[in-house]
C-alpha cells in the first residue's frame, strides 16, 4: 500500500501511472515479499526457535533426550529447519497476495486509477520467473534463519541470561544474513535474467 502511494507520486510526474500495478507486483514478488516476510518470521519464529531450544538446553531436556537414545538434532532441529524452509515460501505467497490486494485497493479506491490498467500492468509485466526468483529467495531465507536460530538455541548456555543473549544474537545475525543473502541472490539473478 505504501509502495503504491510512493510509486504514484514518482510515476505521476512522468504520466506513467499505468505502471503502478507492474511496479508493485514486481517489487512484491522479487524483493519486498521474500525479505519483509523473512524479517517478520525471524522476529516471530526464529526467536521462538532459539528461546525454546535454549530453554530445553538449560533445563537438561536435550540431555534427557540424548540419554533416552533419541538423537536431539534429528528430533528437535531437523523438523524445525524443514518446517521453516517449506513454510516461508508459502507465507511469502500469502504476503504477496495480500500486498497486491492492499495495493489494488489504494490504487483504485483511493487514488482513482483504472482497475483494468492496474491489473493489465500486473499481467503484462509480472512473469513466472519473477515469482520463482522470489520463492527461491524465500527458501534460502527459511534455511538461513532456521539454521541460525536452531544453532543458537541448541548451544545456548548460562541460564536465562544466556538464552536471552542467544535469542538476540539469533535475530540480529539472521536478519543481517537475510539482507546480505538478498543482495547476493539478487545480483546473481540480475546477471542470469
Amino acid at each position, binding site marked *: 500500500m505504501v509502495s503504491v502511494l510512493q510509486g504514484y507520486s514518482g510515476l505521476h510526474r512522468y504520466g506513467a501511472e499505468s505502471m503502478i500495478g507492474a511496479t508493485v507486483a514486481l517489487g512484491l514478488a522479487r524483493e519486498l515479499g521474500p525479505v519483509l516476510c523473512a524479517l517478520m518470521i525471524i522476529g516471530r519464529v526464529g526467536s521462538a526457535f532459539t528461546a525454546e531450544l535454549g530453554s530445553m538446553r538449560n533445563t537438561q531436556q536435550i540431555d534427557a533426550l540424548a540419554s533416552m537414545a*533419541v538423537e536431539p538434532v534429528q528430533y528437535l532441529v531437523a523438523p524445525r529447519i524443514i518446517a521453516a524452509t517449506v513454510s516461508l515460501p508459502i507465507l511469502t505467497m500469502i504476503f504477496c497476495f495480500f500486498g497486491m490486494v492492499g495495493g489494488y485497493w489504494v490504487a483504485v479506491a483511493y487514488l482513482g486509477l483504472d482497475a483494468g490498467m492496474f491489473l493489465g500492468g500486473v499481467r503484462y509485466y509480472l512473469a513466472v520467473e519473477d515469482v520463482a526468483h522470489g520463492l527461491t529467495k524465500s527458501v534460502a531465507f527459511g534455511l538461513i534463519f532456521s539454521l541460525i536460530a536452531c544453532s543458537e538455541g541448541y548451544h545456548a548456555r548460562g541460564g536465562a541470561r544466556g538464552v536471552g543473549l542467544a535469542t538476540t544474537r539469533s535475530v540480529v545475525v539472521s536478519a543481517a544474513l537475510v539482507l546480505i543473502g538478498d543482495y547476493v541472490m539478487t545480483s546473481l539473478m540480475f546477471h542470469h535474467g
Partner: protein
Amino acid sequence: MDAAAIIRVEALVKSYEMQRILDGIQFSIQKGSITTIMGVSGAGKSVLLRHLIALERPDSGAVYVDEEDIFSMSWKRLNRMRRRLGVLFQDAALFDSLSVWDNVAFPIKEHRGLSRSQIAQRVEEKLAMVGMLRHRAKLPAELSGGMRKRVGLARALAMDPEIVFFDEPTTGLDPVTRAAIYRLIRHAHDATGGTFVIVSHDIEGVLEISDELFMLWNGKIVAQGTPEQIRDSSDPLVHQFVTGSAEGPIDVDMTSS
C-alpha cells in the same frame, strides 16, 4: 579387573578452562548394587555422572559398561547402550510441552514396539508406583519440585533399565518428600534388581540406602566403602563430610569476594 563390575571408570580426566574437574578418577560399580558418588557442591559429581552416560567426552580416560568403552562406541552402538539406562536429572528435566503421562510414555513410544494399550498399562504402572497417577494430565509447570522428581523417576524407570542414574535426587526437597524419594528408589531397586548410581551430597539419605559409596574431592576419589565404613571412617575429609562440620580439611571459602 572386577568380574562383577557393570561400570568401570579408568583414569578419567576432564578440565574446563584450565581447571581440572576430574583428575584421573578410577573406580568400578558392582552389578545390582546401589552405589553413591558423594561430595561437596562443586566437587565434580554431576560432571562425572555426565561422563558415565556419555553426555560429555573426557580429556583422557575411559568408561566401560560391560567392559565396552562407551567413548569409542559408534553413535548407533551408544544409543543401543543408552536404551539400557535410565536417568533422573537434577531438576527432573521433564519435557515441559508434554503432560506427565506423555513424559513417562515418551521413551516407551520411541523404543518399544508396543501397542497403545500396552504403553498405557506400563505408564499407568510406573505412575502408580511413584504415586502420580492422578496427576497424569498435568503439565510439568503445574507440579511441585517433589512431584517433578517423582515423574522423572517414573520416566527413568519406564524402560525397565538395567542401570539407573540419579543426579541429586533430593536436592531442594523438604524432609518428608526427601524420605519418600529415597523409599521410592529403594522400592524400585528391590523390584527391578538393577544397578542404581546416585550422585548426591545428601549424606544422611544415601548412607541409608547405598550398598557402596565413593567420595569425590578435588577431582579424585578419596574414600570408598560401605555405609558403615564411611560412617566410621577416621579420614578427616570423610569425617568432616559425614558430620557436616564447617571445621576441617574441606575448605568452603565463604569469604571470597
